[in-house]
């Protein structure tokens, strides 16, 4: 007889009765449901179909799941999704107006350059060159400053604690930041984009993907990524995320741009506040 004391059950026994077992290895539930929804690649779908032909449990599971109500979209999720989508332009004539304004600015810029080129040089006139601030058009092309990688990714920095599972760890971020710091923007964008798919609740991939796209002059693609980064960013990165979001919104003439710029301008603790105020002044009144 064993001297071992009987096991202490802190809770009720939750094991299958002896002699009762599932008789086959079943594919994971997400695959089964995806098969049911006809969204699997054909080779994978045929493997699941074959499994379902001889498995007794999976058909029961799929049928019973129809009777279990699925958890609905929460208000927070609904808001998060909405924030990643820019609002469409207000009126049908707006785009025509914007196009016309851009063309006018472009023509003025060409005329200005031609006249400047044709003007006599200071040596010819004997005058000293004066640097005058060039008249900025209403919709100016903005100079995008490159955002430094986050401090916690600095080399030789040892962080305590573990990274949450929904956040990428420094090793996972390193390849993307390597391309980013080397100004290999296409590769950096590709790598950050993969990270956004892998970690949809992490702000860093969205923020740096957006900044990379801004640096590539693709502000339309940058806008939803920066909007999401702005929403997800913790306090330490909120300022940068909001600023780059504002830049993308300005460049794409998004209707939300004035409000973002205005709120940034009012925030005196923001490092970007003066720039936001300056940019806000250049923003034209929206057409009524």
């Amino acid at each position: 007889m064993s001297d071992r004391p009987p096991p202490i059950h802190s809770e009720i026994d939750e094991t299958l009765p002896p002699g009762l077992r599932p008789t086959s290895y079943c594919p994971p539930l997400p695959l089964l449901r995806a098969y049911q929804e006809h969204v699997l690649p054909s080779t994978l779908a045929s493997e699941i179909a074959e499994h379902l032909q001889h498995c007794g449990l999976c058909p029961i599971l799929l049928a019973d799941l129809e009777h279990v109500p699925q958890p609905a979209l929460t208000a927070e999720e609904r808001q998060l999704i909405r924030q990643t989508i820019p609002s469409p332009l207000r009126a049908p004539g707006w785009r025509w107006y914007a196009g016309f304004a851009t063309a006018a600015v472009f023509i003025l810029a060409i005329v200005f350059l031609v006249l400047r080129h044709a003007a006599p040089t200071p040596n010819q006139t004997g005058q000293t060159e004066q640097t005058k601030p060039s008249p900025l058009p209403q919709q100016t092309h903005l100079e995008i400053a490159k955002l430094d990688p986050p401090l916690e990714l600095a080399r030789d920095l040892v962080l305590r604690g573990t990274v949450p599972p929904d956040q990428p760890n420094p090793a996972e971020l390193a390849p993307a930041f390597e391309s980013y710091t080397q100004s290999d923007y296409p590769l950096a964008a590709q790598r950050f984009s993969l990270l956004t798919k892998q970690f949809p609740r992490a702000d860093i991939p969205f923020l740096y993907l957006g900044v990379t796209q801004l640096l590539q002059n693709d502000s339309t693609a940058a806008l939803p990524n920066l909007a999401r980064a702005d929403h997800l960013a913790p306090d330490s990165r909120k300022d940068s995320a909001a600023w780059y979001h504002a830049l993308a919104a300005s460049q794409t003439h998004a209707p939300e741009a004035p409000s973002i710029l205005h709120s940034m301008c009012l925030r005196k603790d923001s490092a970007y506040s003066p720039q936001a105020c300056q940019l806000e002044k250049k923003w034209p009144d929206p057409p009524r």
Partner: protein
Amino acid sequence: MISIDEFNGIYNKHVDAVFRIVLRAVSRREIAEEITSEVFLTLYQNVDSITQDQLPAWLFTVAKRRTADYWRRCYLDERWSNQDIHEPEEIFPEFSLDDLLTKCSSLKPVHRVCVILRFAQGMSRSEIAAQTGLSVLQVKGNLQYALKLLRDTLASRRPLSPAQELSADV
């Protein structure tokens, strides 16, 4: 052309249905959230060419395509059949779980779902809760109730022997 108000109206009206469809197909909320976002972003980008009467069918079609893209990306290379399969180690059980589940008429769908997810899919209580929208406590209760019924059914189907006597400690 759809105005801001119309767009917001469309979003509010259809986002739940699109999310539900995507969630069914991917089973992960954060991925479903991401794909739903992509679907409405595609609507935004094609806002000039879409008319109200094409909705919500257009949204559902895009949602299906995006989920198919997701699965193609995820599972094209790593097929479930090639993974380390935990076969039931040459076990020839006296009774198969599926057989007993169908015989036990007192079990409701939610009980069967909890049992299959726990013992065939190997999910923890919290994972089952996330999949079904039940609380962890409800999952625990359902599992205990279902196991009790299964034990009772099993006991009535085979002669009792000292070695196989089922514990009645539930």
